[in-house]
């Protein structure tokens, strides 16, 4: 056929279709229709041929019928009137002795999707439900669902629903499954098909007759059924056991999903189910279809959140193949990081090292940050590899390595010596913003240990005019000022030049403001500047938090066997794409949000976009404490290790128990309990809470995951009281936030009274009033409180009170933010 434009083509086809010679020759007629369909599937608009095609419908040739129906179903909506002409043929076909013709007619009658035809369709559909041939019943059952969706507001015909329920006992398994599907759609408003005990057991007993797809559907519907007794539950579970290890991944996944929903109250049973699916899931990971492999990998990641040791022995299964696509490689690395242990670490790192030079830069960078993650537990081996990678002098590798090193140092400060040595000379190979930002941060914080630091910065400062990235400029400012504090002689000149440029010539407000701020700070004196800028260099507690806590299965069970785990970025192993590590600790939600929310408590925020978390800390602490009590400052040093915390806490606990009271005082030590009304706190993310508390120099040590009960947080801080001479100059406060979820009216009230007395004796009326007000509010709303248990050593009531008010303010702010 010559090349024709779509209009010519339609004209040509119309001529052929209406040619009586063609119509009389069955084969030619069919071939002409074939051409029409071909044009249709290539995207040509052939709707103009509708009336010609309708005529072709009346034929004995089944192939031609099928072709005509393909056409009609696509264009019926455009020609409702003409479609009426087809209905007669279709209804006649529904009486045909050949079941194939009957099912074909019935299916396409309902596929026309015309609400004007509903009245003609109902009768054949009702007849279809009682047809002898299973293939007709299959179509008829689904036909009712289509019909219902065509006119969603119409009354549901109770007789049809009853008939569909009774067809659940149809000998043909597909009819049974289709009934479930149809009822599910028709009764959507009532919550879908009702599954009672007889239906559930009927479905379970017939599960074996269904094919893979039917089994998945039945298993999915059964998730709604709740067994009435434990015996029944275990009967069901043992029936399902063979499907759990099915060689068909869809059945396996659907069964596990059902298991998890049935056993949500029996974690031990769920865990053993997870053990059982290990083999089939691993088999799916080795499937020929790479899409299936990917799906299995994503679901394994879910499982590992609850059972980290599940795949430990099979880590080799997650080694990447050379020809695998990047998305599989990256997922495999995420899994590998979770599987690392003492025995396999050498092997694993060797493998990961091989991926670092992957052709795909994303894969290479993912491999490098995977090594960095492992470095949090096995720092020596990992640093050796990372240092070796710097020697390759490739831009994307160097950038990823420097970023990884920065993140590693933030968590494991003991690595800093090696990192400082490795950094020498790598600035030549850094081109991208994030890599340079990471390098600048490291130079600023560890400047005194990197001999070449001033020279590197000088190069940056000389090129600042041509610098396009805002983040790099701000990082450069901070780094230079920090370096100036420890190596003033070498840095003074360049700092002056940099400040001059940023204040006089820079057009961007953020950079200019930051430069001005630093300039004024320097005017206040070197000690002031030091106080503001020398924030924390690391966050060792993050290491404790990062060993991801074992999550309960219920956290992810609802997303199992859905598309959610497959989406990109649902599981992020590492925090890439950000500025300095101070921000790593906080949620992706920017810091400025938090400080905005803290504003109601009269905090001066000098927050700029980049590295001023430390600044903010200083200011907000001052502001907070001044609003409540006499000057009090909190600080995090000396750092307390988790072990030390535990020892001190338990020591206090035992004392507490011996004396058996609400409030203990024995000379140098005080224990108090307090209730703070902030019911949403347990639902906010740990990162948010941690970041907020760090703003005011309170260090969190351990968390339970959000939404779990009882919810706990352990925290500590040091107070430094500057005014009172009689009081000890500094005290250590350990604290626990506890949220049980049950309202404890009497108990908490008593505690409240206790703390009132204590506070009143101190003569802080305002605070008492505030507490009273809060208490009444609490009684009105009947909400549950977060119990705060504090232990202080040595005793200093004033400081404790100050601390408490800071803590409550933070909790309240966060709480309003979460709601």
């Amino acid at each position, binding site marked *: 056929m010559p090349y024709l434009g779509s209009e010519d083509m339609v004209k040509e086809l119309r001529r052929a279709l209406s040619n009586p010679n063609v119509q009389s020759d069955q084969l030619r007629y069919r071939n002409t229709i*074939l051409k029409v*369909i*071909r044009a249709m*599937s*290539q995207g040509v608009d052939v709707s103009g041929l509708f009336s010609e095609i309708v005529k072709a419908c009346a034929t004995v040739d*089944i*192939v031609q019928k*099928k*072709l005509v*129906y*393909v056409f009609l179903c696509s264009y019926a*909506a455009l020609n409702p009137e003409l479609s009426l002409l087809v209905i007669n043929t279709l209804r006649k076909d529904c009486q045909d002795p050949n079941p*194939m013709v009957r099912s074909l007619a019935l*299916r396409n009658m309902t596929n026309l*999707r015309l609400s004007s035809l509903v009245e003609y369709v109902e009768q054949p559909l009702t007849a279809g439900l009682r047809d002898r041939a299973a293939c007709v019943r*299959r*179509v008829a059952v689904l036909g009712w*669902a*289509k019909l219902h969706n065509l006119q969603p507001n119409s009354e549901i015909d109770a007789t049809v629903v009853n008939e569909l329920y009774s067809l659940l006992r149809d000998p043909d398994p*597909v009819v049974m499954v289709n009934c479930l599907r149809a009822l599910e759609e028709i009764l959507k408003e009532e919550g879908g098909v009702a599954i009672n005990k007889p239906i559930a057991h009927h479905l379970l007993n017939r599960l074996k007759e269904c*094919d*893979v*797809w039917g089994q*998945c*559907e039945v298993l*999915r519907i059964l998730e709604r059924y709740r067994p009435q007794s434990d015996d029944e539950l275990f009967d069901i579970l043992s029936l399902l056991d063979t499907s759990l290890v099915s*060689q068909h*991944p*869809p059945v396996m*996944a*659907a069964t596990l999903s059902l298991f998890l929903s049935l056993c949500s109250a029996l974690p031990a049973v769920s865990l053993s189910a997870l053990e059982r699916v290990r083999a089939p899931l691993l*088999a799916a990971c*080795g499937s*020929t*279809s790479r*899409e299936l492999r990917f*799906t299995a990998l994503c679901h394994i990641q879910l499982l590992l959140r609850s059972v980290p040791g599940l795949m430990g022995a099979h880590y*080799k299964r997650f080694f990447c*193949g*050379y*020809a*695998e*696509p*990047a*998305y599989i490689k990256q997922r495999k690395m995420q899994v590998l990081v979770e599987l690392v242990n003492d025995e396999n670490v050498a*092997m694993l790192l060797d493998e990961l090292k091989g991926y670092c*030079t992957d*052709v*795909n830069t994303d894969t290479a960078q993912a491999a490098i940050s995977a090594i960095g993650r492992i470095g949090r537990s096995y720092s020596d081996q990992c640093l050796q590899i990372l240092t*070796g990678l710097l*020697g*390759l002098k*490739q831009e994307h590798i160097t950038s990823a390595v420097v970023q990884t090193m920065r993140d590693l140092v933030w968590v494991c400060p003991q690595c800093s010596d090696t990192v400082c040595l490795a950094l020498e000379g790598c600035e030549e190979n850094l081109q991208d913003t994030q890599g340079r930002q990471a390098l600048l941060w490291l130079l600023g914080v560890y400047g005194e240990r990197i001999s070449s630091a001033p020279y590197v910065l000088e190069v940056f400062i000389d090129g600042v005019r041509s610098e396009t990235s805002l983040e790099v400029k701000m990082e450069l400012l901070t780094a230079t000022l920090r370096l100036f504090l420890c190596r003033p002689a070498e840095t003074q000149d360049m700092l002056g030049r940099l400040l001059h440029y940023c204040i006089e010539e820079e057009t961007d407000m953020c950079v200019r403001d930051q430069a001005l701020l630093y300039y004024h700070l320097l005017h206040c004196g070197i000690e002031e500047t030091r106080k503001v800028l020398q924030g924390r260099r690391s966050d060792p507690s993050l290491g404790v938090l990062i060993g991801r806590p074992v999550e309960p299965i219920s956290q992810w069970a609802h997303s199992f*066997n*859905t*598309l*959610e785990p*497959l*989406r*990109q970025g649902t599981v992020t192993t590492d925090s890439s794409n950000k500025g300095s590590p101070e921000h790593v600790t906080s949620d992706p939600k920017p810091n400025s949000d938090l400080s905005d929310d803290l504003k109601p408590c009269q905090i001066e925020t000098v927050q700029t976009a980049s590295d001023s978390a430390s600044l903010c800390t200083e200011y907000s602490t001052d502001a907070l404490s001044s609003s409540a009590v006499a000057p009090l400052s909190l600080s995090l040093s000396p750092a307390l290790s988790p072990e030390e915390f535990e020892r001190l806490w338990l020591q206090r606990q035992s004392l507490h128990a011996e004396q058996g009271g609400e409030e203990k005082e024995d000379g140098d030590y005080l224990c108090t309990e307090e209730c703070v009304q902030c019911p949403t706190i347990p639902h906010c993310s740990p990162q948010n809470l941690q970041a907020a508390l760090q703003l005011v120099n309170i260090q969190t040590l351990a968390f339970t995951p959000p939404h779990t009960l009882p919810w706990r947080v352990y925290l500590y801080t040091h107070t430094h009281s500057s005014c009172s001479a009689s009081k000890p100059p500094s005290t250590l406060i350990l604290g626990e936030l506890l949220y049980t979820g049950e309202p404890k009216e009497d108990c908490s009230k008593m505690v409240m009274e206790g703390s009132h007395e204590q506070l009143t004796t101190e003569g802080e009326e305002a605070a008492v009033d505030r507490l009273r007000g809060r208490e009444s509010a609490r009684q009105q709303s009947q909400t549950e409180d977060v119990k705060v248990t504090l232990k202080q050593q040595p005793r200093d009531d004033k400081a404790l009170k100050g601390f408490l008010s800071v803590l409550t303010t933070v909790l309240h702010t966060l709480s309003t933010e979460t709601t």
Partner: protein
Amino acid sequence: MISQIFILSSKGDHLIYKDFRGEAGSDVVSIFYEKVMTLTGDQPPVVMSHKDLQFIHVRQGGLYWVATTTADSSPFTIIEFLNRLAALVKDYCGSLSEKMVQMNFALIYELLDEVVDYGYIQTTSSDVLKNFIQTEAVSSRPFSLFDISNVGLFGAETQQSIVAPSSAATRPIQSSREQGGKSEIFVDVIERMTIVIGSNGMLMKADVEGEITVKCYMPNCTEMRIGLNEEFSIGKSQLRGYGAAVRVDECSFHQAVRLDEFDSHRILRLCPSQGEQTVMQYQLSDDLPSAPPFRLFPTIERDSGGRLLMYLKLRCDLPPKSCLLLKCVMYVTPVASVFSLSQELSSPDQSAELKPQSRAVVWKVPRFTGGTQLSALFKLDVPGLSSASMQEVGPVGLSFELPKYTATGLQIRFLRLSPVQPGPSQRWVRYVTHSDSYTIRI
């Protein structure tokens, strides 16, 4: 629940589009293709979303097979279904390619109509479907003498496909009934090998995933019996027979396989349906019965002119003459920027070229006999070559196909059909081991 299914060619041509539920317009096809195109690299993620519509796709035969669905549907089900659909189309059309789909679109519409109704999967069993499918497949070319040269040989087409079957097996299943074609049955033992060999020559990882597939063109075959090696054993504990045991770690069977004679005589009994089906799947990790088939002896150095010299010796340790390797592609990843490549290969039918975008030297070896050795010398011009960048060379990846060889040693002792087929019938048993992931670190 599937809302729409469409098939796109790799260039974005609409081949097949079917809307089952009428919930979203047909413009989703272009939306999908735009999404694929805007992503860098040729590996779009399996799941993509547009508003509340989810695209799931698989790639088979160089085509995109896409389903749109809602977020709460099971990815396992839909991906497995798309794979099954591709397999069905392959069964019915003979092979899978853009041209085949284009020629047989009527047949594919018919298939889709029977397989999915209102977005719900009805059946994918070829036994059931054969009663409904009326359209005949159109083959791409008439039978010609040229095909004979290919009969019985394995030729790999792409890295994706497990094994392109010999042309005898790439014919539509329907023709056997309609045109009175030869009644034939193919039993293939296909093993996929994944091997990682460390730089010290130590075997770091070895995995074999195998399957026995039956491709049946017999119109009326009631039962067939496949006898495996007597000494075939599963798991570590039980070992059978006196000779070298053929062992696998795990093994699973198609649900239609009856295993009553399996324990005593290692016989699988089944009634094959028309088309292709996987009868048995097994896997073995770490403990291979024989040494890995290839060994590489690399020497990498820098010559006086600052060029990188890679001298590679590749040895095939398979018994001589028993094996004929048809294709071996070797990827050697060299350093980032290579200007030019000069090569010295051991025989003229080999070829090597430099692929700058994937930073690889691809060395193609059309045939390679067991017990022999190949060598190649690559000279690479690398600007600013340093000793550190020498470390970056590697790894070497091999992809190959070994006909008439199984890594586990699994053999089929006999293949019996009952009742005895009238007329000429042919039974073929074929073995192949292939790998696209045979990595040797340097």
